[in-house]
């Protein structure tokens, strides 16, 4: 039983961390909660579905995976970079966070309506063969949980993406510049960093992680125009629990929420999973107002 709880919790946490990464990253660099993030996730899922379906779907599984990932990446990055160029950049320059938050909200609404216009209000899903969940041993001695090959793939891909992001941020010159801009954009400019260029890169990374999250969501189940919004609240919770702007804090928050949700489901209280997750958020913030890894 414990093994199953942990395995399910890790799967929830993996999807949640992918869905939260862009939010955490944009908060770290731009210092505002990007409420268009939810709809960027949805767009990622729908773009992945379109790409995969056009490439033949189940008839050509590898090709459709590549096509789905590419379509999601191009669409998500394109949409957020366009939104930055047309709206967000000018508002961010004025340093009035209220107007930036409202604008992001409006962009999200617009995106969702465009999506309904194109795809209709119903759900999309990949048509695929039924997969068998195989037992997975996390630790010797722990009872086994069960995962399908797709679910294992999502967990593995998430781990690789997180490790890649970590190496990029900690060990590459561009990642270091990105951290400098996130910490103090004024000093970064005075030090010779071309701040707007690095901000474009930050938005591009947000888009890329929204694309990955959208693809993962679609591979695990159907998507509909509200899918991103359903992830937005737990994603905000993971980001806030971990400490605003800390990517590793966000991962810890996602793991905590994933495990609590998994426990709640396994003890037969599935309809309470969101309540317990948010009770946990309130508890953490009560004990540590800046989050687990936040700087007060």
């Amino acid at each position, binding site marked *: 039983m414990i093994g199953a709880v942990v395995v399910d919790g890790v799967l929830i946490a993996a999807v949640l961390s992918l869905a939260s990464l862009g939010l955490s990253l944009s908060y770290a660099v731009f210092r505002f909660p990007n409420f268009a993030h939810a709809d960027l996730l949805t767009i990622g899922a729908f773009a992945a579905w379109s790409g995969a379906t056009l490439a033949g779907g189940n008839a050509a599984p590898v090709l459709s995976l590549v096509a789905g990932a590419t379509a999601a990446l191009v669409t998500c990055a394109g949409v957020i970079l366009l939104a930055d160029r047309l709206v967000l950049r000018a508002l961010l320059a004025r340093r009035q966070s209220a107007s930036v938050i409202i604008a992001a909200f409006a962009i999200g609404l617009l995106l969702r309506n465009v999506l309904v216009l194109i795809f209709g209000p119903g759900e999309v899903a990949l048509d695929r063969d039924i997969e068998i969940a195989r037992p997975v041993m996390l630790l010797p001695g722990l009872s086994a949980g069960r995962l399908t090959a797709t679910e294992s793939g999502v967990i593995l891909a998430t781990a690789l993406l997180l490790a890649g992001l970590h190496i990029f941020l900690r060990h590459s010159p561009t990642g270091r510049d990105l*951290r*400098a801009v996130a910490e103090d954009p004024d000093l970064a400019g*005075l*030090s*010779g960093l071309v701040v707007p260029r690095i901000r474009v890169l930050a938005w591009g990374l947000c888009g890329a992680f929204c694309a990955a999250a959208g693809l993962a969501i679609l591979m695990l189940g159907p998507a509909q125009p509200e899918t991103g919004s359903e992830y937005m609240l737990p994603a905000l919770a993971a980001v806030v629990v971990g400490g605003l702007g800390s990517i590793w804090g966000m991962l810890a928050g996602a793991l905590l929420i994933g495990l609590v949700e998994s426990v709640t489901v396994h003890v037969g209280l599935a309809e309470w999973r969101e309540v317990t997750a948010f009770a946990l958020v309130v508890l953490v913030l009560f004990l540590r107002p800046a989050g687990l890894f936040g700087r007060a």
Partner: protein
Amino acid sequence: MPDASAPGTDNPGAALLCVEGLCAGYSARAPIVHDLSLALRAGEIVALLGTNGAGKSTAMKAMACAIAPFAGRIVCAGTDLTGAPSWVAARAGMGYVPQRDNVFAQLTVQENFAVGARARNGRDGPDTDAVLALFPDLKPRLASRAGVLSGGMRQMVAIGRALLGAPRVLLLDEPSAGLSPLLVGRLFARLTSLRQHLPILLVEQNVRAALAIADRALVMVEGRLHLATEPDDPAVTAVLAGGLAV
């Protein structure tokens, strides 16, 4: 490249920083700095003095293009920087160490230096070893985050960060703030050793220490340049003591 070929910039005595009629502040309706003109020539240290709130830091921010001026002209090593973004100024050779928030606290000392080197723009200049020779105390702390260092060490990191950008001029805003008298003496001795290659505009509360190494003194009163004179002119301390002698 463009600045090195600009006429006259490498003659001794040529102005490497030229500020004319600078007006600056945080709202166009209430400018803080009025009609400030000054020149910084190769090989000299100029002290920019004034009482609290006189507008020294605001003037420096405008020279470094951290804030946009309302009027006036800023030319650094032959490049007109009026209205340019801060990274263009840094890349043109404007080295600037702000009074506050002058290091990346979350980055290591080494990373602070590497970010500073982004301003080099192909110029030759000191490398990390040269900066460590100037500030040997930093050698064992290269891998420490700047935020955990003492105030004195942080000031050295901030100056080192600016030096690694191979600046043509250096603007220092109160580098001695928060340092013990012993550390101030050591820091200023190192600044004089830089003067040969790098003219310095120095804003200081520590008037005596600044005047001791300066070649010229400028005194600001209420946002205007009130006095431009020799460092040993008794009028400097008289004005700073509050006697607004005209």
